[in-house]
């Protein structure tokens, strides 16, 4: 019995290590590539450890105006869409948590609805609408699109947390004569910090990672977001540039992986808080 358990434990570890190799290896390989010299990349070496590690590809990336400015664009769109989405969602989340449940079903329905509809159906009319408002090929337009795209989910996440906060706290603030908005931003917001943090991370990562809308809505080379710029890199002009592409990809991955690490904990608990309370 005991022997059998040890064997199964070893087998489980082996299986897990197999999974991890499969899941992590491609990224590790890309990191290794980004540190290899171009001749070494083309030498057909299978070694994970570069012969002579160098940061030359990173230097190339940073010397390229296009990549730097696309990173700046991605930060711009990410930060503004996140801030707007959370600011707008806070009062809404409060309303969903504290009043009747009719709108709750609408919001939840909308979250699920957006999953079933292919983005192309929204994208075409959105493109036409934004073109009318002179907001295609504009970071402002893209920011608005991301706000709307993130809103239902952020609303839902925040609303789950608001429900865990006792109403008595609000009643005390009301007696002190605070208005509803003051109540939400002065009294509740500090209590909601973990949830706000999770929403911020979620919204930022989804804007940082987004590709489809940016691909269609942006035209000028100097407005490209990082994902679109990197996608262009893989086209004809990037064929012979494995090293710099790997370096740029590593750089593009760093913010999302870092935020994701933090996000993951809050994310899972947030989902559960939202689901259990209903």
């Amino acid at each position, binding site marked *: 019995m005991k022997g059998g358990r040890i064997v199964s434990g070893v087998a489980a570890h082996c299986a*897990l290590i197999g999974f991890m190799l499969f899941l992590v290896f491609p990224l590790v390989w890309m990191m290794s590539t980004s540190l290899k010299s171009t001749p070494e990349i083309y030498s*057909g070496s299978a070694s994970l450890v570069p012969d002579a590690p160098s940061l030359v590809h990173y230097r190339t990336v940073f010397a390229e105006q296009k990549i730097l400015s696309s990173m700046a664009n991605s930060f711009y769109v990410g930060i503004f869409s996140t801030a707007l989405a959370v600011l707008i969602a806070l009062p809404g989340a409060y309303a969903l948590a504290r009043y*009747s449940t009719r709108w709750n079903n609408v919001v939840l329905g909308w979250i699920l609805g957006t999953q079933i509809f292919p983005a192309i159906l929204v994208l*075409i009319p959105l493109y036409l609408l934004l073109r009318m408002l002179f907001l295609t090929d504009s970071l402002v337009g893209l920011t608005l699109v991301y706000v709307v795209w993130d809103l239902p989910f952020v609303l839902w996440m925040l609303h789950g947390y608001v429900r865990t906060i006792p109403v008595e706290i609000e009643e005390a603030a009301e007696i002190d004569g605070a208005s509803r908005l003051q109540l939400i931003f002065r009294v509740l917001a500090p209590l909601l910090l973990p949830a706000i943090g999770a929403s911020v991370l979620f919204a930022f990562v989804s804007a940082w990672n987004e590709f489809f809308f940016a691909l269609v809505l942006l035209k000028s080379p100097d407005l490209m977001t990082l994902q679109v710029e990197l996608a262009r890199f893989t086209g004809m002009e990037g064929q012979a540039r494995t090293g710099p592409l790997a370096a740029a990809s590593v750089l593009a991955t760093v913010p999302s992986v870092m935020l994701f*690490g933090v996000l993951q904990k809050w994310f899972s608990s947030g989902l559960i808080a939202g689901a259990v309370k209903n």
Partner: protein
Amino acid sequence: MSETLHTPRGRGQLKLLLPALLPVLLLSVIPLLRGVYLGFTDYSLGSPIRFNGLANYARMLKDFYFWKSFEVGFIWTIVVTAAQVILGLCLALLLNRKMRFVSLYSTLMLVPWAMPPIIRGIVWRQVYDPDTGILNTILLRLGLLHESINWLSSFEYVIPAVIVAGVWGEIPKAAVFLLAGLKAIPEDLYEAARIDGAGTWREFRSITLPMLAPVMAAVVSLSFMWNFNTFGIVWILTQGGPGGLTRLPMLAAYEEAFRYGYVGYAAAIGNVMVVVISIVLFAYLRVQLKESRS
């Protein structure tokens, strides 16, 4: 209930919700409805919008490329969904054991999910690269290949190659949700089964699987939708090539709209995608429901 305030309902709620609802309505709900409508018009960029009933769908019936793209769309969606759920379940079961390093593994496994879809594509392009790719290098060294293969432009290998990359990116999502589901199964069920002398397989069949059924149904449904609507990773890997072999429905719709300008037709493809997904999900959830009742 103490959760509801004593203040008047309705008006106050709407006022607070409005800043969120208005932009969603303007930039999401209305465009979506308009998008559905455009699928019944002959609209192409630069020309007026004219209702043309079901003409787009009649054209689809005879459109070889449409059928091709839905065919590969189904292969992709079914294989990726099945593989990610099965592998994700294996991974979740392993991570649900009380062992050392489990938390390290649970963090590491998130890596593909945390990467932007475009980077996922770039990573696998580099793995598959005919000149510098590690896959060719390893297979050549092992003597399994005699000359390197250009995986992503080979008619034979491109679909499996794209599917492997897709599954790789989707396993973590399935594993995270299924692991949460496993953790929610009460421990005493297993203890009772153990007292009755049930083996591991019996436990899995008669406790784990039935208890996991609702989470499983959710994971399968969501994955199915997400996979059917995939764009980014395949776009980066192949742009739909070679010869349109990996032109998933979303890629087809994108090209119709933004390469050829047939916006109405592209929206019609989108509509058909919605109908197809709805039918499949409806059928699947009905079977699930029946099984869980019996």
